[in-house]
């Protein structure tokens, strides 16, 4: 395994990003523990990007762990499996991690405590499976991007195959503060992750694996290097710790120096990025036949008594996890599902863990440090921090003046809403909210415009059709008239001829 090192010049030239306090300890220093079973699991049907899954069980039915309870809802979708054995008690609205605190349909499962699996089909050497088979099994296991994006993994695999991917990038950056679930997973299950990566490699037809891990996780780097030793196609690369290193295009740029075009996909430059947690899930699914029923979640934050990484069944409420970690020391100022930079604020502690939940955080008032926003002093910190090279202060000023079009012109569409600008702003201006608001507003405007365009098109088409029909009618009419006239003329001529004949006869 030849060592790949990021050239110092590349590090120097890429100066974007921020350095939040990592707050990874004590959780990062402790083994992953099993969270156990709560009284009730609530499984939203939309735990992934794309169409919601379709329920195939009925209320009152007993299910086993790993049993399919909701099937794929479309081309881009993912199925859902029972995280433990128990009874379906309801299929009803429930709180979900949603930016606007909306509810969603969820399957409510009461565990029976037996945790009985369906018969599993294990595979001793999954690497010998065909590309098609690997991709199908990943799809059947309901695996989605475990880093938080939750894009159905199988779709990404087939996408990779179409776009001639040469490099599989494993994202082990875990750049969000507080989170250490990927770190622990890499330390404890490096072999499984490397095996999973090799399976994905085979499914996509790529030729090498580049695993990027931030240099604040030396133990994880060491474990991964050891596990990757036998495989010349797998490279573990140390990358600088900074936020948002885990954004896929930023990771690609740091690891390869290639800048993926803004109007295309990462696959267009021959790279496919998967999270280390996804590689682990892929390994479990192919080696042991286990569908995705649990994930590692970091439970942390200043309000949590004993922060820790837990192996959590999907659907477990946040309140249960806080209890499991010694309860809350102080009333939290803010509870977050996901990381503190891009996560979703939640109000209801019944909010369940879903496939993309990497962290469950209860932040104390001192950590949140919320204060009134003051005026922008144009210090330019946000310009330096922006990983895409935007001018957040100028965009915010335009959005503030309701000139959304101008904000779009200077790059609003390219904004990742990563929050680096909002993190660093000394005036504490809610920049991300400005951009999210403007993006939403522009999207609804363009939807409206599209609707108007469609109406216009239909109206024009109708008018054209009426005109065409009228013209055709007129043509037919004219033709008939001409025929009639011709016939009359011929008749008249014949009459005249007959009359002339008569005359000559007489």
């Amino acid at each position: 395994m030849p060592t790949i090192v990021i050239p110092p010049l590349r590090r120097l030239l890429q100066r974007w990003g921020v350095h939040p306090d990592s707050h990874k300890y004590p959780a990062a220093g402790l083994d992953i523990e099993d969270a156990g079973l709560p009284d009730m699991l609530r499984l939203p049907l939309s735990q992934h990007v794309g169409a919601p899954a379709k329920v195939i069980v009925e209320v009152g039915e007993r299910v086993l762990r790993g049993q399919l309870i909701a099937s794929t809802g479309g081309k881009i979708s993912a199925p859902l499996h029972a995280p433990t054995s128990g009874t379906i008690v309801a299929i009803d609205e429930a709180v979900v991690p949603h930016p606007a605190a909306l509810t969603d349909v969820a399957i409510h499962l009461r565990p029976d405590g037996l945790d009985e699996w369906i018969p599993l089909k294990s595979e001793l050497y999954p690497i010998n499976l065909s590309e098609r088979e690997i991709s199908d099994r990943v799809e059947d296991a309901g695996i989605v991007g475990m880093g938080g994006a939750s894009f159905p993994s199988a779709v990404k695999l087939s996408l990779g195959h179409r776009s001639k991917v040469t490099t599989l990038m494993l994202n082990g950056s875990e750049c969000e503060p507080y989170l250490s679930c990927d770190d622990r997973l890499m330390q404890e299950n490096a072999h499984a992750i490397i095996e999973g990566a090799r399976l994905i490699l085979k499914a996509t037809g790529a030729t090498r694996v580049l695993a990027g891990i931030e240099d604040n996780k030396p133990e994880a780097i060491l474990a991964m290097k050891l596990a990757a030793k036998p495989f010349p196609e797998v490279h573990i690369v140390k990358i600088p710790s900074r936020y948002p290193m885990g954004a896929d295009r930023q990771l690609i740029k740091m690891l390869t120096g290639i800048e993926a075009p803004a109007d295309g996909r990462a696959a267009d430059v021959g790279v496919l990025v998967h999270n280390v947690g996804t590689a682990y899930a892929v390994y479990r699914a192919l080696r042991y036949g286990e569908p995705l029923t649990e994930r590692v979640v970091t439970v942390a934050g200043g309000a949590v008594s004993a922060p820790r990484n837990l192996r959590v069944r999907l659907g477990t409420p946040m309140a249960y996890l806080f209890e499991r970690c010694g309860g809350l020391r102080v009333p939290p100022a803010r509870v977050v599902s996901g990381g503190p930079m891009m996560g979703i604020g939640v109000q209801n502690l019944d909010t369940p863990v879903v496939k993309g939940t990497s962290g469950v955080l209860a932040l104390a008032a001192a950590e949140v440090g919320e204060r009134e926003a003051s005026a922008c002093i144009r210090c330019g910190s946000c310009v330096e921090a922006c990983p895409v090279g935007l001018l957040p202060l100028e965009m915010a000023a335009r959005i503030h003046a309701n000139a959304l079009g101008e904000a779009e012109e200077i790059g609003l569409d390219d904004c990742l809403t990563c929050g680096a600008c909002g993190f660093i702003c000394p005036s504490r201006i809610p920049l991300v909210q400005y951009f999210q608001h403007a993006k939403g507003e522009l999207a609804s405007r363009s939807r409206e415009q599209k609707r108007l365009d469609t109406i216009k098109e239909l109206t024009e088409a109708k008018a054209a059709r009426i005109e065409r029909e009228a013209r055709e009618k007129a043509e037919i009419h004219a033709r008939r008239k001409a025929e009639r006239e011709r016939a009359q003329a011929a008749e008249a001529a014949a009459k005249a001829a007959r009359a002339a004949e008569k005359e000559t006869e007489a």
Partner: protein
Amino acid sequence: MLNNSPYVRKPASVSRVMLKVLAALVPAIAVYVWQFGPAILIQLALASATALVCEAAMLKLRGKPLALYLSDLSAIVTAWLIALAFPPLAPWWLVVTGTAFAIVVAKHLYGGLGQNTFNPAMVAYCVMIVAFPSLMSQWPGDLSMQAAALAEHAQVFPDGPAMVLDAITSATPLDALRTGLRAAGATVSSVSADPASFGQVAGRGWEWIALAYLAGGLFLIQQRVITWHIPASFIAALSVIAGAFWLADSTHYASPLFHLAAGGSMLGAFFIFTDPVSACTTPRGKLIYAAAAALLVYLIRVFGAYPDGVAFATLLMNILVPLIDMKTQPPVFGHKN
């Protein structure tokens, strides 16, 4: 609001930024006192008090939260810059009027913190030097320190003996050089041989203060309050321009080192041109902004009628900031084709 990510923030605030700027000015103030006596402290106090009163009054009139904006220290920074840019022997009302004009007109009438197109401290300087050119040109000269200090104290207050003024003031080295060079046969070396105004490389005493500004400025860069772009570009451009003239005719044009150490060069490079509100924010924009400012400073100093060009150069460049910023937007990720 529920979803207001990021949920953690850097413990940065405007008041912290401003406090660091004030701290960075302290060494220069200390050297100032050492070289020219404690009169500057009175000017600093006068300017600060005026700034706070005006700021509070304007905030009240505009219906803005008093505590939030008064505690951000931005008015104090403006006040200190005014006090340091004005002659220490100027009568008390000069600095008070200048500060009041800066806060009321240049800052709040333009929309308050963050909205002012022009650097308030430099607006104050320009207005005052246009209105009271002679008062704004009285700088402490000879260095019999105690005498000067005593006289300064007397001068700051209105009924101090007026005749002392002429005895203790002199032109700034920049002024002295320009006027001196008008005499037939005068050269840079003959003019700057006068120990009353000139020291090792530039103005006597002033060169040490310039060094202290440099030290404070480096602290600001280290603290990431300012970036290296503006000071580096300004210093490089001023050196190149002054160097070109000096190489062409060193008898009539002072050396680059003189220009860097004289007048407001160092104060400008690290504290004036770097004022975030009125300067460019894009990295390339900062480079262009500071280099153009250096050119203006040199032209006004050498060919203009005012003792120094920093203030006018700042205001002229402030006008161009929106244009430069828009033309120098950094390349957006993934759009390099």
